[in-house]
């Protein structure tokens, strides 16, 4: 594969030089993609998280965004505090990348600052004039709070079930199912699998896989979307089931049979 032509040393060196911004940006992505967990890589990525050279036309920080995404994949909790720092950056996409990375790192220190971004509730969650996004990356924030088991955020998240953007509703349903295991929320996602828009069905598939809502398996297998995504969603359910019942159980066999049928 072409991207393998970089080596760890070269990627770290590319990230640390300041001449070629394109190479830095690519190196940050590469270190995450190939899960390079060396301390030197973590250190270089943490430095890149403070970069001021690489600026997007909108004032954003492309390199910082990529560094944040990579740090999420590398599983080193040294990155937690610096990523929390990114949550208050003016760059929306950096905040989004940081929220997603903090979700992956599974460190509870991220809960209060993430929750703070929901201040103002649904009323504050409006489109920023002239931008294609809301005031905060609500989807990523809510999903992270669900994964981080932030049970104290339940009442803050609940109103987002009524948000005008379906994907935000789904994020709320997914998080609330993770936090309460109340099937009402799982069924909201199952219902989303019947919407007319493919993009929304895809989004619901991903959310169901992450939620672990087992009764959705059949609905996942039969919704109209590409099999690759259905397989990924069922894999999420299977992992959830196996984390509760590690041996072959009738439920996990059922999920695998559905997966077999989608190959």
């Amino acid at each position, binding site marked *: 594969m072409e991207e393998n032509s970089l080596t760890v040393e070269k990627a770290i060196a590319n990230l640390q030089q300041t001449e070629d911004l394109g190479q830095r940006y690519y190196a940050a992505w590469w270190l995450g993609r190939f899960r390079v967990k060396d301390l030197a890589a973590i250190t270089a990525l943490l430095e890149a998280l403070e970069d001021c050279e690489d600026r997007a036309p909108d004032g954003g920080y492309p390199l910082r965004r990529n560094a944040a995404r990579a740090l999420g994949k590398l599983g080193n909790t040294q990155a937690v505090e610096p990523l929390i720092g990114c949550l208050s950056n003016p760059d929306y996409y950096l905040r989004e990348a940081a929220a997603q990375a903090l979700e992956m790192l599974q460190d509870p220190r991220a809960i209060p600052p993430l929750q703070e971004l929901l201040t103002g509730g649904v009323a504050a969650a409006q489109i920023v004039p002239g931008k294609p996004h809301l005031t905060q990356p609500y989807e990523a924030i809510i999903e992270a709070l669900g994964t981080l088991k932030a049970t104290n955020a339940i009442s803050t998240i609940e109103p987002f079930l009524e948000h005008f953007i379906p994907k935000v509703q789904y994020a709320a349903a997914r998080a609330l199912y993770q936090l309460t295991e109340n099937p009402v929320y799982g069924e909201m996602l199952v219902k989303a699998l019947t919407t007319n828009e493919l993009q929304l069905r895809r989004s619901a598939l991903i959310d169901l896989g992450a939620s672990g809502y087992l009764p959705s398996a059949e609905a996942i297998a039969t919704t109209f979307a*590409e099999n690759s995504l259905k*397989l990924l969603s069922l*894999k999420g359910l299977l992992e959830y089931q*196996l984390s509760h019942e590690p041996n*072959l159980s009738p439920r996990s066999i059922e999920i695998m049979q559905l997966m*077999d049928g989608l*190959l």
Partner: protein
Amino acid sequence: MSKMNTQSLIDAVNNATSALTLLKSVQALAEQQDPAAISTLIAVLGYNNPGAAVAAVDGLISLGQVVVPQLLEQVDGYNYGARAWAVRVFAGIGDPRALDLLITSALEDFSPSVRRAAAKGLGNILWSQLPPQDIAKAQQKVLDSLFLTLNDGEWIVRYAGVVGLESLGKSNPTLIESITTKLTEIKQQEPEITIKSRIDLALVNFV
């Protein structure tokens, strides 16, 4: 009557003006299960319309082996997209004449979705269609190829490799011992719990 119906359904496919009417027409034509529809269904594989292609694949698979010569003949001249769909058809039919194409696809295709379909298909070859003296050699080739898919970088291809091996073992129980040994060994190094679990299921299904 049925022939005329097929022709009008073929016309509907050829004259479809939107993605949705194309999908509906292909579904209707596929349900007809008439060999006269084969060339039209094959043509649909090249339309770059995933919904219609899925329907055409289903229709061609349900027609079975009668499809194989024509599809093999046309597949080489095809664009990549059509080729990928054709591999799925061959995987579904299991005709040994497509064996080499399935092996190459399982090991070398750049798309994981094609590799996974081919790997599963390799487990479902209709061995009785081969001259008896050729079966053992062909099965060994499939066995070796499926073992290689267990090292694929994509989890879904490794998963499909396990499924393929389970089917192969069921079709020839003398292979079960070497499949069991290989799967047990691969399970030690497999990082995905999903695949470890699918290996367990295959081993249980052998007993």
